[in-house]
């Protein structure tokens, strides 16, 4: 089992991966997460899917809530979350390299 599997993360458009990627750029609350994910991935997550993924990620200790007086509670990525995301990114990078080399794409992934 790879470390990404053990953390419950799968591939690029998986909501947990998108959320972790967004939080890697800084803490955000629900609405800010949706906007950010839409801007960098072109994926419009639903509120139910977002909070389902947030629940699972918090259960696994990959993200944590920040103190807030507002109802819009921000979340930040934990060190375990950073490691899990790095593992997924490495797998995606390796896959992209193999695909790019087999397709002889000029952009190549170094």
């Amino acid at each position, binding site marked *: 089992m790879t470390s990404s599997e053990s953390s*419950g993360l799968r591939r690029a458009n998986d909501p947990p991966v998108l959320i972790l990627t967004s939080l890697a750029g800084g803490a955000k609350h*629900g609405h800010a997460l949706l906007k950010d994910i839409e801007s960098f991935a072109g994926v419009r997550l639903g509120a139910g899917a977002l909070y389902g993924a947030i629940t699972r990620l918090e259960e696994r200790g990959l993200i944590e809530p920040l103190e807030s007086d507002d*109802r819009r509670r921000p979340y930040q990525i934990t060190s375990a979350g950073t490691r899990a995301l790095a593992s997924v990114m490495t797998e995606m990078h390796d896959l992209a390299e193999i695909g790019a080399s087999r397709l002889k794409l000029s952009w190549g992934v170094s």
Partner: protein
Amino acid sequence: MGSLVTLKRSHYRRFLRWYPPSWRDRYGEELLALIEDEWGTKAPSPRYRRAIARAGLRERAHATGLVGQGRGSATQLRSGSLVVLSAWTLFVLAGIGFQKTSEHFAQAVPLASRPTGQDAFNTVALFAVVSLVAVVLGVAATLPALATFLRSGGLRQVRRHVIRSVTGSALVVAGVVPLSLWAHHLSRYQRNGGDGAYSWAFVALALLVAATLASWTVTAAAVAQRLTLSHAVLRIEACLAFVVAGSMGAVTIATFLWWDTLATHASWFLQGSPIGRSSSSLSLTMVAIVSLMSVAVLFAMAGVVRISSSWRQFSSTPPDAVTGGALQS
């Protein structure tokens, strides 16, 4: 403006009813704030509402350990066992239908073919008893935990379920007595569809019985999810769930064999036609009974798969561990 916001907030709050209470307490306000951010004063679209409902039901399944790995192997094992128990209740309904349909069948089958039908029927009866004994043993194993739960005021947590089930049972009793008295004044032909009013009353009572049985199953599941069960009791429950699911499968196969025998040698019996008259072997009653049995077996298999998938992890936990209910507050 303030009242409009309050109105919208109370409207949005209705979305949260799909989610389990513990989830609502933790994430409810955040989700409401997000919905407000997304929709403002507009009403969310039906598609959006459906997505929220689906997500809420998924969270309920997670909270009870029916899906996902987050609740731990003990909760998953308990949920798998409860799925089998629920499937068995559905199976009992089909069994009651079979018992009614198969009454006096032996006289209908020609002597030469009688042993096959009788063997199939005996197999049905044998495994029905095995499953019943397994369920009774499963309930008995939880009695000490149930006593502790009740002593600590647990009844308050499930009062709504209990009241609904007791009310249903009272209605069933109130319906059975007059219907039985009515039946005494009817001929066999009238009791078996000849009297329209009686038939409708019988169907209504049957539906009430089914609803009450379902209500008691929900009550039992609600209580079982709140009991603190030892490692050993959970292991017993899981083993008994396998026995119940296996017995249900055996009963279904034997029912098919019984049906096949009757369809071949006494199809008129299945249709309620006069003796010896040629009839279709495709009895709607038997189709309904076997379909219900098959659906129940599929549910039971889903429970067994859930138990199997969590068994290894559960077995590796310390045997003296005591596991609290999935819905304990």
